């Protein structure tokens, strides 16, 4: 169970609905550990600033997370969380292990165009 303030994705069906219905989506797939918690924290802080992006998490040990673990983009990943950025349902970027706020913002800015309030 992920006790973050992000919206959780519980099933593969939810996942596919979310990425098809939203233009810009970031999904952090991890556990409640030291490499993952900072990334959830960053996403929670960026939620208000990036109103045009939907932020979610998904439990790595939930079997339904195969939708993320089996992506070709995560081949070679050996560090959680697996963070996936989707644009119109397609993976545009994926990162492995802990990231800084600057790294996350750089991806959001380059992959998901300008901020709504910019």
């Amino acid at each position: 169970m992920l006790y973050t303030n992000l919206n959780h994705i519980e099933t593969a069906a939810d996942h596919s609905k979310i990425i098809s219905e939203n233009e810009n989506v970031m999904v952090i797939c991890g556990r409640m550990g030291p490499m993952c918690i900072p990334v959830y924290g960053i996403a929670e802080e960026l939620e208000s600033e990036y109103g045009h992006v939907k932020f979610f998490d998904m439990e790595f040990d939930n079997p339904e997370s195969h939708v993320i673990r089996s992506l070709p983009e995560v081949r070679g990943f050996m560090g959680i969380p697996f963070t996936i950025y989707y644009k119109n349902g397609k993976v545009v970027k994926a990162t492995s292990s802990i990231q800084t706020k600057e790294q996350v913002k750089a991806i959001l800015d380059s992959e998901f165009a300008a901020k709504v309030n910019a």
Partner: protein
Amino acid sequence: MEKSNHYDAIVVGAGPAGLTAGIYLSRGRLRTLILNEGTVGGQMVLTHEIANYPGVESISGYQLATIMKKQALSFGCEIKSNITIGKIDLSDEIKSVTLGDGTSYSADTLILTPGGRSRTLGVAGENKFKGRGVSYCATCDGDFFTDKEIVVIGGGNSALEEAVSLTKYASKVTIIHQFDHFQAFDHAIKEAQMNPKIEFIMESTVAGFNGNESLESVDIRNLKTGKTYNYRTDGAFVFIGYIPNTEFVADKIETNQWGEIIVKADMSTSLGGVFAAGDSIAKRYRQVTTAVGDATVAALAATNYIHEKRAKKEHLATV
């Protein structure tokens, strides 16, 4: 109404020490701002279970951090996290901090609680293969290395204990250590030495990480002969100790040879009005309880400092 950027107290770092200082200062009705570079909770969130914090039988570091944060906020403390500090001025009577985004804050007193972080090797390929074979957390990433051969770099308690725990997954764990002996408790050394899956490469260090999509080998340098050779491995776990996060003030206040801030019994530093607490100060035992204890002293001493300073000013104004 626009809020002023001047505070009674600024606390730098929101680990257990910084949050405790925030609780005491704001409960003492001092306008307090905590500035934190990373995630609120600091190293506490690295801990899956804290079983030695009195009054709480067992709790995850994340949950304890969340409670401490809530407590500080409930007394009116402000917290800004995931910021970077661009400039810090501590020598004048009014202390000032400018963030990476250009925003400046000032305060009458400042408490440094930046804690510490895991040391990284800083060698070629380390960043590139982070999350692709190079890891700093056995409980997080151990299962990616099921039936694989891995190396553990380091020779202290964490390196040896984590090496043993990684044998649950890996088929072989090779510990690479720079000295000919370990700096760890006897029981940790014995447990590692008795484990049939663990091998040792002593007096050696890792000089580089290589691979394509993920880590495939490390360059091992023998420190006695100076020779470097390539060693095939699927993963590398780095546990080579901690360093204090004091680089940003090292040329401003007194620190020892390891960069730890030197404090007096009331947690005051070499600069008037600047206090320090937690893992970043020169001390022997680094725990949540000791961080919380130091920070209590620092916050009360800082409160006293402000009251005395204001009383002096008022006195001067009346004579």
